[in-house]
Every structure is written in structure tokens, then in C-alpha cells.
């Protein structure tokens, strides 16, 4: 599979694009000459990454904030002139340090759901117009939504309640939405990147040996290969 030829000029948006897997995805997409817009909360980091990658569009906003949803969708559509692939990558761990569910404040669970479930739901919904337009304008090529998952969505790891429950909900949302949107040419995927050496993982497991963890760039490469395969399918 020649990922570059498939990804070149593809219009891709990545949330949580200034650290961890998101940053690795933005860099890899840029290297493949895709057209990239990325979203993150911190203006400073957004501008630094945009400066590092000429042509990439940095957008400041918080996907967990309902008021930001359409502002972000507007800027993504404007930056790329439409959208072919949305990668909902921004994630929240929930309580830090990790806590048993019985010690998790309900606000912390709500925060995790806002970032990991409701945020991706809202942003995807606001961008379905451009995603379905992409599918209509490229007969035979689906538009894609990729929701970044986790094995914590499937395996009940003690201490990962807020994160695991929110990712489990996102996984099921992806499956249902993919069924509903298939007739409109939009596919919704889940992708489990594995245990990576990222800021989120460091929050969860501060004493983990980085050498035992995947590099985000490797997970990014795997995801782009998957995207290239899906687009060619």
C-alpha cells in the first residue's frame, strides 16, 4: 500500500493535535502531503506546531465545550475547503491520579464523557455535512471518521472507570453511527493505538518504563495505513 499517494491532498482534521498520538498523526499526515487541520486547547502549542509544519492549519478550541463545536467545524471546513477524514483523537483520562469508580467524583466522570464521548459526537455531527459532501463528490470513496479507542473500552481495568466507560461508549457510538451513515458514504471506525509513550499515559501510569511503551509515531503510521486501506476499499 502506497500511503502517500492515497493520503496526498486528502483533507484531514485531527483533534488533540499538539501532543502524543495527535501530534504524531499531524506530523505524519504533513509528511504524506495531506492537507491537515488540527485542534487543541493551548494557543501557544497550536501556534508552535503550526509554525513547525508549514501549510498545516492550527485551530484553538476545546472539543469538550459545546460553544466551540461549530466554531471549530467552521474553521476546519474553511481551512481545508471541506473534509474527507475526521480523527477524533483528543481524550481525557478522567480523574488524575486514577481512582476507583467509587472514589470518582461525578464531575470527573462527566468531564471524561464530555471530552471522550460528547465532544466527538458533537464535532462529528457538525462536520457530517462536509463529510457526506466528500462522499458524494468522490463516488466509490467513503469519507471517514476515526474515533481513537482503547483496550480499556473492552477490558475492565480497575482504576480506569471514567476513561474506560467513556471509551466503551465511544466504541459503541462508532459502531451504531457507522451502520446509520453507511448509506451516505460515511464510515465510522474505531482505532486502538495501544499503550503509547504519551502525556496521557504518563498521567495514568507515572512510573511506567517508556521503553516498554509504543512510540506514538508507530501507532500513527499504523492508523494512516488503515486509513489508506479504508479509502481504497
Amino acid at each position, binding site marked *: 500500500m502506497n500511503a502517500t499517494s492515497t493520503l496526498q491532498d486528502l483533507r484531514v482534521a485531527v483533534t488533540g493535535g499538539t501532543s502524543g498520538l495527535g501530534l504524531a498523526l499531524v506530523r505524519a499526515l504533513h509528511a504524506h502531503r495531506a492537507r491537515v487541520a488540527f485542534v487543541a486547547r493551548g494557543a501557544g502549542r497550536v501556534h508552535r506546531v503550526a509554525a513547525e509544519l508549514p501549510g498545516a492549519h492550527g485551530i484553538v478550541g476545546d472539543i469538550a465545550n459545546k460553544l466551540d463545536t461549530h466554531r471549530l467545524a467552521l474553521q476546519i471546513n474553511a481551512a481545508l475547503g471541506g473534509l474527507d477524514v475526521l480523527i477524533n483523537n483528543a481524550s481525557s483520562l478522567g480523574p488524575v491520579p486514577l481512582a476507583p469508580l467509587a472514589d470518582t467524583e461525578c464531575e470527573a466522570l462527566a468531564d471524561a464523557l464530555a471530552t471522550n464521548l460528547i465532544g466527538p459526537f458533537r464535532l462529528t455531527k457538525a462536520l*457530517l455535512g462536509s463529510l457526506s459532501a466528500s462522499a458524494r463528490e468522490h463516488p466509490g470513496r467513503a469519507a471517514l471518521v476515526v474515533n481513537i479507542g482503547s483496550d480499556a473500552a473492552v477490558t475492565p481495568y480497575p482504576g480506569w472507570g471514567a476513561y474506560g466507560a467513556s471509551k466503551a461508549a465511544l466504541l459503541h457510538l462508532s459502531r451504531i453511527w457507522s451502520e446509520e451513515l453507511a448509506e451516505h458514504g460515511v464510515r465510522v471506525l474505531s482505532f486502538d493505538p495501544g499503550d503509547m509513550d504519551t502525556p496521557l499515559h504518563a498521567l495514568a501510569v507515572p512510573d511506567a518504563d517508556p521503553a516498554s511503551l509504543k512510540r506514538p509515531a508507530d501507532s500513527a503510521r499504523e492508523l494512516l495505513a488503515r486509513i489508506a486501506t479504508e479509502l481504497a476499499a
Partner: protein
Amino acid sequence: MKPARHPIQRPRDAKLLVVSPTGLLQYSPRSELAQFLRPGDLLVANDAATLPASLDGIHLRSGSPIEVRLAGRRSLAVDDLREFCAVVFGPGDHRTRTEDRAAPAPLRAGDALTLGPLKARVLRLLDHPRLVALAFEGTPDDIWAGIAKHGKPVQYAHVHEPLALWDVWTRVAALPVAFEPPSAGFVLDWQLLHSLKERGIAFATLTHAAGLSSTGDAALDARLPFDEPYHLPQATVDAIAAARRRGGRVIALGTTVTRALEHAASRGPLRAGDGLADQKLSATSTLRIVDAIVSGTHEPGTSHYELLRAFASDAVLARADAALIANGYRTHEFGDSVLIERGAARQGNAALARNAATRPVPMATKETSTSTPATRATQLRCAGSTTCWESKKTTPSLRP
């Protein structure tokens, strides 16, 4: 007609008035719209997302408040957004009827405006005190971010509560290029799109920069709609040809779709690409593509109503108006809808159009980004004879 005052795109009690080609009227809940479309038909919607095109700020030279309503742009290109045509108002907001809004402080070319995080400069006064060309400072990304952060949807006094972007984006909203919502598209939701597929009714989109529907000034309103750039995708050209081949009708969802398709068709065989709709459709217009329109309810005297006269005779429209009023239909962007089939009374148009329909529609092989329409788009006239993008001898000098 009474205005719809609440920003609900699909009220449960929304109504539809169906006007048949012979002028017969039928009353229906709007939720049954799909039942009035036939297998083989094609529904075409405008997928433009609506900009938060109202920007309030300060006119620096006078220090006085100003509201800028973005109203025109020469193309749809996302990186070509430094210059806009705009309608300007003095202090106040949407709660005052536009007709009653104060004029802004007298503007001169070169005047600076701060609009929240955005900085703009008056490039030219156009030929009306409320119409200017202005340019934003910064990169396209900066300007988009500033508009996204600071802008509000253009709204009018009949809706009291402040509109959010989600109130004015249709379910299929994509490229943010409309200055007001293509509100006929409010009828769409994914359930309806699913029903259309189930019933063998095709769906396609184009992107048309729907402009302001009112400025509050009679002279300016008489010139609406301003010139509006649009993009017609190849897939939509193909879908129209396919509908024609199978004998289906082309149904335009809204006046903007009608304007774009008929503009594109006025230049010869329908081709994909960019264009600038600068024509006004009215009773004397020939409809070459659109067989029926689904639209909001419009009142006589508006440019939208003028466009409906291309579909039905004045006698039929007058009966429809009376029926809308008698049956409590609501008007404006969140109001009820009409479905008007091109009338038997429009004999001339219908015959012409039928001829057009039986002509094979040649396929354009490539999008015509460098063709005549795109070139013309660089000379957008915002309204009537007003040239927005080129200096004219009437342009005031920078010196007083």
C-alpha cells in the same frame, strides 16, 4: 403572514402547502414532504454553512459603535477572504427592526474598524451610504478564527433570542460561505435523507453563498439579491442528467439552489465548476433545469417572491398567498414551506424546459476552475451597478 419567532428548524407542527402545476392547492404536515416527491426525482440542496456574518465593533475615527454585516465576497475560495462587501449599521442590534436602525458614523475609504479580535479597513464606499467594501488584516486562518470567535449569525427582530450557529446551520452544512442560512434546507434531517433513499429519490448538493435577505433600506433591498458565487459539483451535474434520463423531476430546495442551477444552465449545457449568479429570476424567466421548488413562504415584494413567479402565475400565487394566510402558515426563515411545481400556466417556460430536458446533457470532464465564470467572479458586483472590487471614479479620495 405571521412570522415564525422561534429558531426551531423542524417544528413538529410545520406545515407544507403544495401547489400543483395546474394551481391546485394541497395542505400537508411538512413532515410528509417526501410523499410529494416521486421515485426518480432528484432533490438538490444548498450545503453552504452559514457564517456568523454580523460583527460588532468600533469605527475608530469617530469612536462610535458599528455593526458590520458581511454581505458579499468575490469567490468561494477559502483563502480568498480578505475583502468583503458589507452592509453597515450604527449602534444597536438585531432587536431593533433593520428599518429603524441608526446609520453608522459617516465612513471614508481608509477608515479603520476593530471588530472584536478582527481589524478591518474600509476600502471603498459603494454607491449607497450603508454599503462598503472592506478588507480584513491578517492571514486567512486568523480571519476565519476571528469571524468564528466574534461573529454572530445575522438575525432580524422577529426572532428575539440570540441565534447560535447551530440554529442556522442545516444538517448538511459544509463550506461556511452563506451570509444568511439557506433556510429552505432546514427541512432536511438524516431521517428524511434516509426516507428519500428508501423511496428511490436522489439527493445532491451545490454550494451557493446565500446573501442577506434584507438590509432595512428600501433602495438597497430593491437590489437584492446581490451577486452570489456558487460551486456546482460534477456529481450534481451527473445526478441531474441521470434524473432527466429516467424522467424524474429536479426539485430545488430553496431559492439559492434555483438561482445557481438556472444561472449555470443559462450559459449553455450544464457544467460543473464555479459561477457567479448575477441574474434575477422573475415572472419572465425561463426555467431550464428546475421543475419544482421547495421554499419557505415568502411575501409579495421580496426578491424570493419574485423568484417564485418564475414557477407559477400571479393568479395562482395570489390564491396560494390567501391560503397561507387563511390557514395560519408562518413566514420567515423558521417558518412553514411551500412546494411549487412549475405551472401549466407557465406554458412557454415548460415547453422550453421540456425541450431542454430531452436534449442530452453533455458531461463536463473537468471542473472549470479557470473558465469564464471564475474569471468573472473576480469582478463581483455586490449589487446592481455597484462594483465591489474595482475602484470606480466615484470612489472617494482618502483625503477629505
